């Protein structure tokens, strides 16, 4: 499949140049709270991606019918409706995943990256591009979440991929990789400050890579 240059730009922006997690620094709330293990980070990242694709797509569809003054309230209303629908569907058909994500699932509504992309991109762009932007930005934040989750899980608990069986079922029971056997644990990495330190390191790393390229 040939990717149009426009599509490539959208993904380049979402995953690297304008990455919401480490460049725009939007959507930090779940980043800090949920990124303590890989499974939590991945699950919330993908749920956010789904919501962003849906919200960008539907806003782009109806963008010509929304009076300018009503943009923000309408967008917020729409995002809240979509998040509630996604929450209900996950609760009904993927209860274990719902139990793992808990309160952070409805809290996607308050993640400002969702509103930011709707306002900055989807309200001015055609529908397909908007959906792609939602997916790209969502994957961008997922990548940061998972990296941070892996970092914190290894340093905090000495394991990787633990708890996948809680989200996916018993077949994932053996996925846990023990990186350091008999690791006493490092509480700081599990607690929210660990997320700040990890995020700071990731931003520094990205800046270093970027400046080397330039």
């Amino acid at each position, binding site marked *: 499949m040939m990717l149009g240059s426009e599509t490539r730009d959208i993904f380049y922006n979402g995953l690297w140049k304008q990455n919401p997690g480490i460049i725009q620094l939007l959507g930090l709330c779940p980043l800090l709270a949920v990124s303590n293990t890989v499974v*939590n980070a991945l699950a919330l990242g993908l749920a956010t991606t789904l919501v962003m694709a849906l919200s960008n797509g539907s806003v782009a569809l109806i963008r010509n019918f929304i*009076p300018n003054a009503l943009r923000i309230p309408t967008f917020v*209303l*729409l995002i809240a409706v979509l998040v509630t629908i996604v929450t209900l569907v996950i*609760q009904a058909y993927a209860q274990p995943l719902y*139990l793992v994500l808990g309160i*952070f699932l409805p809290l996607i509504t308050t993640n400002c990256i969702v509103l930011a992309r709707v306002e900055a991109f989807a309200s001015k762009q055609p529908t397909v591009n908007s959906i792609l932007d939602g997916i790209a930005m969502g994957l961008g934040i997922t990548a940061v979440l998972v990296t941070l989750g892996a970092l914190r899980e290894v340093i905090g608990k000495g394991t990787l991929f633990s708890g996948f069986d809680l989200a996916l079922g018993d077949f994932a029971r053996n996925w846990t990789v023990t990186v350091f056997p008999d690791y006493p644990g490092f509480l700081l990495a599990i607690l929210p400050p660990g997320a700040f330190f990890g995020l700071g390191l990731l931003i520094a790393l990205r800046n270093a890579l970027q400046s080397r390229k330039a």
Partner: protein
Amino acid sequence: MKRIKHWVRDILAPAAVLLLFSAIGALLLSGTYQTTAPAIEKAERAIKNQLLAQALPPGSFDNDLSRAIYPLPTDPLLGLKRPANRYLATRAGQVSGVILEASAQDGYAGEIRLLIGILPDGRIGGVRVTTHHETPGLGDYIEVARSPWIRQFDGTSLDRPDAAHWKVRKEGGLFDYVAGATVTPRAIVKAVHSSLRYFAAHRAELLSGEAP
């Protein structure tokens, strides 16, 4: 005339649009709720049944616990704010235990709801957490799926350990906890202990179908 026109354009029209979007949103939500409600209820019941079955030793009962429901009044010892249920376990027709719904109100983040299985001789058959809002990754080791912590109540009773040792280790008690998250286990230890006191005071009624 001009003012009315303004009023229609700047206030009435946007209000109508917002109302329309709200109505569409409400419709979508109620539709999704209606379609998912049976599946959500089924999934929740399945999880509760699973936890109920774990609150007593395997093989100690042979009835369908989810159907052996009896009422439980609000009582400060159980930490209940609303009337709840108890589940009567029987084996070959003989009462072999009871599971109380109880609640610890003083968790780190609000209420922790518990199922407390008690054998006729007053020993704990098992304790399970049904819902809680403790810190993910820190206080959630009370879930049996995440750690065996909650199993240390198995076999304890009102006099074993004695009242002075119904505490977490940090406070000179018998029960383990994870450093950094002591509020959570403290609340549960307290709730289990007071549930046992409730059981001792109402044993005969709880083990029959009567109202305690």
